[in-house]
Structure formats: C-alpha cells, structure tokens
C-alpha cells in the first residue's frame, strides 16, 4: 500500500486508540479513587461503566427522556448502586482479610452482571450519538463527532477531578484520608464516610464512561470484566494512586491496543492490553511512575 494510505490508516488507529484510551483512563481513575481511600481493588469497576451505558439506553430509547436529563439521572442511579455496594457489602466487612474483600468485589461484579442480564438480556444496545454522526475528515482519516465528546468529556473530568481533590473541602478530605487515615481521623475526618464517597465517585465516573462510549461501541451486559481488567492495567501502568499517571497510561494502553490490533492482528486485540497488564505486574508492579519502595509498604 502507498505510504499516504498507511499513514492515514495509522492516524485512524491513533484516533481509535485515544478514544478507547480515554475510557480506560476514566476506569483507571475509578480504580485509583477507591484504592486510594481503601486499598481495595474494586473488581466491579467495569460494571459501573456497563450500567452507565445500559441505564442511559433505557432512559433515552425506551422512556424517551431527553439526553441531557437522562445523563444526570443515569449518573445518579449508578452512583446509588455504588453507594449500596459500599454500605451493604464493603463497610460491614472493612476489617477482614484482603482475600475476602477481593472475592466480595468479584461477587458483586457477578451479581450486578447477573442483574443486568436479567433486566436487559444478552443483546447489544446502542445510543444515539450526542451530536450527530457526520464524520469529520482529518489527515486522511475520519473522526466521528462522538469521539470529540469522548476525549473532550474525559479532559473535562480530569480537570474537574483535579479541582475537586485539590480545591474543595470534601476532595481534600478524601485525599487526606487516602494519604494517612489515622491522621485524617484525628483531625476529625470521618474516614468511613470518605470510603463511601470514594465508591460513589468511582461509580459516577464509570457511568459517564459508559454513557459516552455506548454510541460508538454499543454496550451489553458482560462488557464489565474486560473493561475492568484493561482499566486496571492502565491504573497499574501509571502507578496505583497516581492521578495523571492513570490518565496517561490509559491513553497509552488504548494506543497500544489499537495500533497492535490494526497493524499486527485484530483477533487477539483484547489480549494486548491484558498482556501489558501481566508484563507490568511481573516486571514493575509499581508502574511507570510509581516508586518500588512505596509499593512495598502497601498493605498487600
């Protein structure tokens, strides 16, 4: 193929990579938020994304609710799920072994997946694109408007979160909690509340990710597991607990996956991100930006 054809193909892969990478970045942020507050890895993180997409589908397609309103209702609904999860299953067992907590979040992810299958069945669902589907030409490739929404909203989320954690009282309290729970509680911060908020915030983030990706990638009941794995891969790659690391790693992972699938083989597309995850875990679990000594001090 001629070089301009290859170039525009690569541009297309890069666009796709940044798009999916944004989703991975959001999921990674969700992992980080809960991990920072609790040192728990929430295996059900992917289910928040799935719920975000499917709830929005029902509201918009079945109930005819206008998208902006449905957007906020969906976030609220999924946040509620996150809250219920934490109160019912995490909080009562906060002092138990890591192994048990791991299995509990796994069980929760299956439970939510099962509920989704019961409610929505096994079909894939689509959402209308937020602002139409006219492709925009770019360097020989095309960008669909939804991609701009995805990347744009991700950037907005990153900025909002940054402001939240650095400037607002609640955000700073959550950061303090993540950093040093004993000191935080000594200063009067209700650490249990912070854990609860971390689940709610992660759920909300997941919901947004689900809503913005469904127009381009559809959504079905069992998308959660793979999303969670890849998002976790991004979180680890960027160093667990590192905010900007997660974002960068998410994009990077998306690019690797997209370029790998396009240039090498698409049959094993999903395996690429998983392979990266394994490599990071085996070689440098503290991630690209993390510090090995700090990660040794972690509880698990």
């Amino acid at each position, binding site marked *: 193929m001629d070089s301009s054809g290859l170039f525009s193909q690569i541009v297309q892969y890069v666009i796709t990579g940044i798009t999916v990478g944004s989703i991975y970045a959001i999921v990674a942020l969700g992992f980080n938020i809960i991990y920072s507050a609790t040192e*728990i*890895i929430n*295996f059900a993180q992917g289910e928040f994304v799935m719920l975000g997409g499917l709830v929005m589908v029902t509201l918009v397609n079945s109930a005819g609710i206008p998208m902006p309103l449905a957007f906020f209702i969906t976030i609220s609904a999924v946040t509620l799920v996150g809250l219920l999860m934490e109160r019912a*299953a995490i909080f*009562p*067992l906060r002092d*138990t072994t*890591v*192994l*048990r907590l*791991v*299995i*509990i979040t*796994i*069980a*929760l*992810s*299956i*439970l*939510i*997946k*099962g*509920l989704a*299958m*019961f409610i929505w069945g096994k079909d894939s669902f689509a959402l209308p694109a937020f602002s139409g589907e006219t492709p925009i030409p770019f360097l020989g490739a095309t960008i669909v408007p939804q991609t701009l929404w995805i990347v744009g909203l991700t950037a907005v989320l990153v900025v909002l979160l940054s402001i939240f954690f650095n400037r607002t009282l609640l955000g700073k309290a959550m950061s303090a909690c993540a950093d040093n729970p004993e000191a935080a509680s000594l200063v009067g911060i209700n650490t249990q509340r912070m854990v609860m908020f971390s689940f709610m915030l992660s759920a909300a983030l997941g919901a947004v990710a689900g809503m913005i990706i469904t127009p381009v990638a559809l959504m079905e009941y069992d998308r959660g*597991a*793979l999303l969670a*794995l890849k998002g*976790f*891969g991004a979180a*680890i790659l960027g160093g667990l607990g590192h905010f900007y690391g997660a974002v960068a790693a998410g994009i990077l992972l998306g690019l690797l996956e997209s370029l790998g699938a396009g240039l090498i083989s698409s*049959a*094993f597309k*999903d*395996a690429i991100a*998983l*392979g990266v*995850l*394994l490599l990071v*875990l*085996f070689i440098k*679990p503290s991630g690209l930006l993390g510090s090995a000594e700090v990660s040794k001090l972690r509880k*698990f």
Partner: protein
Amino acid sequence: MGRNNIIGILGLSLFILLFPLTGRISAISHYVDIMVFVGLTAMITMGLSLLMGYAGQISLGHAAFYGLGAYASGILTVKYGLNPWLALFIGVFLSAVLAVVVGSPSLKLRGHYLAMATLAFGEIIYIIFNGWISLTKGPDGFGDIPYLSIFGFSFDSMLSNYYLIWFVAIIMLVFVLNIIHSRLGRALMSIHGSELAASAMGVNAARFKIQVFIISAVMASIAGSFYAHYVQYINPPVFDLFFSIKLLMMVIIGGMSNIWGALIGAALITFLPEWLIFMEDFDILAYGLILLLITMFLPKGLFGLPEVVYKLFAPRVKASLG
C-alpha cells in the same frame, strides 16, 4: 491420614460404585451424567483448594488449565492422530510449563495483584482459544474427539467414563490428602500461619507456592483431557471466566482449606442448575448472590454453618438463662 479420612474415602468409593443404580429411577436417570461432570470438576477443585486453602493463593484463571488439557488432547488426537494418553501427558506438560512461566512472577504478587494476574492470564488463554482459529477452530469448536481406551477396552459409554473418571478422582483425593497430612502439608500451613517463621524454619515458601500451583494446574489439565474424550466436542465457552468463578465458588462453599469441601462444593454447584430449574435467566445473578452471601456470612464455607448459627442464637440463649 487419620481414620476419618480413610472412612471417608471408603464411603465415597462405595457411594460412587453404587450411585449408577439411581439410573433406574427415570426422574433422575440423568444424574449419573451430571456426576461425571462432578468428578471432572472435583479434580480441579481439589487442586484449587490446595492452592487457596493451604498455600494461601488465589486463582481466577484456572479454567485456562482445564481448557489447555482439553484442547491439547483434542488437537493432538484429532489433527495429529496421537495416542490419547500421550496427548494427555503432553497437555499436562504444557500446563505445568505454563504454570511455572505465569506462576513464578505471579506468586510473588499478593492479594489483589495476584487475583488480577490470574484473571488476566485466564482471559488471555480464552482469547487464544477463540482467536487462533487455524489451531482450535475458534468459536465453532472442535469435534470428533475419540474415546479413551486401554489395552483394547474402549471407554465409549457414559458408565465406563463415569467409573474411569471417578477412579482417577479418588486416586487424586488420596494423593492430596497424603500431602496435606505430611511435612509438606504442615509446611504449607506454616506459610499461611507466618511466612516469616516458616522461612526461619527452613521452609522455602516461594518454591512451595509454585509447586502447589503446578499441581493444581496439572490436575485441572488432566480433568480437561478426560472432558475432551468424554464429551468428544469442545468449544471456548466451556473454559471462560465464568467457569473460573464457579470453581472459586465451589472451593469457598466447601470451606477453602477442606479437601472434602472441594468435593462437596463441586457437587453442589454442578447440580445447582438441576435443582433451580427456573434459574435460566437468573443463573448469573444467582451465582453472584450465592458467592456474595457465602463470602460475607460463611467464610469457612458450609462447614462454618454450625458456628455461625451458634453465634446467632448463643447470646439469646444466654440471656434467657441469665
């Protein structure tokens, strides 16, 4: 290994021997077929129980080794005409090698990281089963796998497979029980109790963990090979994440460090769809709920039930007495 265990083995053998008589009762005549799958699954859960309960590790990807054994047996016998028993050994060898390659770095990880690593590993293998179409025929699956045979006797009926598989399963049970009640079993428990002290007593924790991982992988691989020759057709969905999770459930329901529990857990979960026929749409939901409830309230599995019930009622009993 203790008198109780010997009685248990004899009792189990007798039960297995006589169970096919239930085939006469038409309402449950298919139970024997289900029991074959219980036997296969029990091979895996016994190894997993050793890994989780005794070595203190977790694996969310064990379906991968089951699948490796099955596909190795299937591909080598159908495509290359290999002797099924040789194919089984090759499958075992492959699984053992993979267990070392993946296990060595993974077992240095702890808790969540290990869970994620095994999860990722299991998914990668699943993706390969689906994606390497030239080798595995992908989602279409793989058929015409021959029956096993020894010295001319062909295991071509459900009953002969039933006895063969349970024969092997019971041998594995004896093997595993022997290990547990030995210096190796105590070494494993010591790692669980205090890895610091265990290594001070000369226990090479890292090597033990990897050895148990290999054993559990090999047992799953053998089960997979038997599965392939029994059902004679394999396709990827059998070896998916959900099956790995079901395996986890079986081990937990039985109480993690209880090999008999692994057997009971395998039986319960394998028979579950039978008893909850309305479960069609609910099945994933039901499994998730069961796993959640068991992990939250019965951490020692069903064997912890008496203790939990006691704790529930004890305060009230005391109050009424005092």
